């Protein structure tokens, strides 16, 4: 299974939608709260060059925003 990381904040609605989408498709993922975790915030900037959330890292493929077609493609759904 692909290694999936979701960079998010607690309040961000599209972050919740993204996580729910992964759960609905039985995709295991690691969630990192970039508002609480400075290291995760730095990682988000290093990987995506920006600060908008959600960002998904799916086996190195970086997806900014809840872009369902891109997520499905990266996960081969």
């Amino acid at each position, binding site marked *: 299974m692909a290694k999936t990381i979701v960079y998010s*904040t607690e309040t*961000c*609605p599209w972050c919740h*939608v993204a996580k729910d989408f992964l759960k609905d498709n039985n995709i295991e993922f690691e969630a990192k709260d*970039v508002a609480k975790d400075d290291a995760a915030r730095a990682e988000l900037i290093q990987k995506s*060059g920006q*600060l908008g959330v959600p960002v998904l890292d799916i086996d190195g493929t970086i997806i900014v925003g809840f872009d369902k077609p891109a997520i499905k493609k990266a996960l081969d759904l």
Partner: protein
Amino acid sequence: MYDLIIIGGGVAAFAAAIYAGRLQLKTLLVGEKVGGTIMLTDEIANYPGFKKITGMELFLRIKEHAQDYDIEVLEERAESIERQTGLVRNSTDVPEPADRRNSNGAVGFEVVTKDERLKTKTVIIATGTHLRKLNVPGEAEFANRGVHYCALCDGALYKNRVIGVVGGSDSAATEALLLSEYAEKVFIIYRKEKIRAEPVTAQRVDRNKKIEIINNTNVIEMKGDKFLHSVILDKPYKGSNELKLDALFIQVGQIPLSDLAAAAGVATNEKKEIIINRDCETNIPGIFACGDVVDGRFKQAITGVAQAVTAAHSAYEYVAGL
């Protein structure tokens, strides 16, 4: 063939689906991104039955309610609406009203997606709006690099920082209040004398010690390196036209997503809003519209939902009359 295709994915679209389901119309909802702009609202306190609810929660409840009925949902972009030719009427005994025929004498529409041509007797357009941009130098360059459009999504990233909000509407004031929970300081930068927030919101802004309003002022440029560092104002603030900011949230209104409707011949006004009557009919018989995309003066979830119910009922009566 569907009785009704609803185009849109927000609260108005799903509210129309609830009522279409109740009226047992064979209904398909086509929405590219299910959720809509209400997802970006932190707190809704004017929807009857809920003293306080988040935009996302309200949307999910309405969506769940709609899906209790026998409706279909297709998460695709509707690319066009075309008037159909040669459809067979429900009954050959009853003459069709002349105004329900198109120029070829037929009734109905095709909603075109990238893969399908979906036939329907009626259409409800509930495509909503997208957020207006400020259109000044630096805005695109620093998008998500200090320039943002959703405090609920990205505000928490700016704890103890200095943030600006551009705009003077109730939405702008609400964004500033939310951001003040994280930020050290929030400036509301507004081009006019007095912000247009609802009294209850304006009062909360007045009492908030972290918020300062810079009025009669425009942001004309955004500057930085990798990330935003400052904005340029068209008037000096405390002796300088440059205001140092860690982030700028833009709330300068919304633009109706009506191009699809306009391309189908649906009449719009100078603001690109779809013109409807009180039954939510457009100028094209069989096409109805509701929600933020229409020409209402007061746009709230509750007004959009009320229009959606009216539009669904009008579609029902239209189908019954075919």
